[in-house]
């Protein structure tokens, strides 16, 4: 297995870079969309709330794999053709946004009611109260679930392999089919995914500890 690993290393390295790129980009985009969806849901404005509820229902209620296939193979029929990597990023972002919207929403709802009142009592606008008072506390409340979602998304990036994105899983498939050493290749990438997840979860724990210390 060692010889194979050494020979595969350059391709694996490229795969790791693509995997991490997919994961972080989709997470950033998905979090931004998720925050907007959460705010829409909490806005108290009926059409926005309805949109947010529908969004959550659709994207959380369908497999991410199907969402990726739909965007890459389905949209060209409507004249929208996207490259594999953008397709994957869009699908993963939209998918993770649905989970993130719930994480943000529960975080915001978890902040004590008196905090908003105190913010209003010194003359803040709703937006100032959200940005300066509510959101920083909501983020702390939601940090564990947000961290879990990031780790889950890192593994979900392997779905991009079905639309020909050469990320870690696709690299393993390719080398496997060329050498017929599927077992070794998949064990190797499983170990790499595990390594990435472990690093992230250590980071998450550190972050949680730091936040607990701040107040």
């Amino acid at each position, binding site marked *: 297995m060692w010889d194979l690993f050494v020979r595969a290393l350059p391709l694996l390295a490229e795969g790791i870079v693509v995997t991490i790129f997919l994961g972080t980009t989709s997470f950033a985009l998905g979090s931004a969309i998720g925050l907007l969806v959460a705010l829409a849901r909490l806005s108290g404005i009926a059409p926005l709330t309805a949109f947010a509820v529908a969004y959550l229902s659709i994207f959380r209620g369908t497999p991410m794999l199907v969402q990726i296939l739909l965007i890459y193979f389905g949209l060209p029929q409507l004249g929208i053709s996207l490259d594999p990597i953008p397709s994957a990023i869009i699908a993963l972002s939209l998918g993770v946004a649905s989970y993130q919207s719930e994480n943000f929403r529960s975080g915001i709802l978890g902040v004590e009611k008196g905090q908003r*009142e*105190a913010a*209003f*009592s*010194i*003359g803040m606008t709703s937006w100032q109260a959200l940005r300066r008072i509510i959101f*920083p506390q909501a983020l702390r409340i939601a940090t564990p679930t947000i961290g879990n979602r990031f780790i889950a998304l890192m593994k979900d990036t392997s779905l991009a392999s079905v639309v020909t994105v050469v990320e870690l899983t696709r690299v393993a498939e390719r080398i496997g089919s060329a050498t017929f050493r599927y077992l070794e290749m998949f064990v190797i990438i499983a170990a790499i995914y595990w390594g990435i997840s472990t690093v992230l979860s250590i980071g998450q724990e550190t972050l949680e500890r730091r936040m607990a210390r*701040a107040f």
Partner: protein
Amino acid sequence: MTEEKPQIRVRAVRKRFGRLEVLRGIDLDVKRGEVVVVMGVSGSGKTTLIRCLNFLEEPDEGHVEVCGREVACGAGRSRERSSQIRHIRTHVGMVFQSFNLFPHMTALGNVTEGLVTVKKMPKREAIVLGERMLARVGLAEKRDEYPSRLSGGQKQRVAIARAIAMQPDVVLFDEPTSALDPELHEEVLNVMRGLAADGMTMVVVTHEVAFAREVADRVVFMDEGTIVEEAAPAEFFARARHPRARSFLRLMQHSDPEGGAAAERDGQSLALGGNH
């Protein structure tokens, strides 16, 4: 003095929560520099009343005029009205029963937040003013502590500093000592005494009889959503006329034969306190 326009002018204010009518036609004037203590049993509407003064609660009917600005009640939410309400809030400080300090900010951060974010004061100026406010409540040395590391009494004093840092015309106190252990009441009340002595206009919902007796210019007694008695404290505590006020005071005195602040604390734990 009597000719001056009142800082707060409340007329015929009504407020209901669902089927429960909490305020049933309130009239109240508070003059500049006056300290008005609002008393009454739990559920009499006193907390709702002062929350209506800075529109944390929206009155359904009536007029509320603060610092010469009137905001129409029960008028829904327009952009213009929201900004009127915010304007009033920058002139009316509020101190809450449960402090509501911002836990992610230091004591100084809590005090300067409104100055920087709302008043757009330059940060350096805000810090100077914030430090002065913390010194005024006796907590200059706690400027860099987070609220979680402060005692209840200290938290409430920081909350008072946060409110007065905005240099309001009026400060509203919603049972400022009710969430505190008895031995912490005095440090908060002393800060409030200081504010009153400096001429701050204050509306205080409290059960602290000794404080009311000593500091208030007027005691307002509420019962079932109306003001049933309004008198100078000496007169109110000596010979309240309304039967509900008399039974309220009897309960207070029963709790401690010597009277004074200690009586009030016990009275609270007995029957009257904890108006949430």
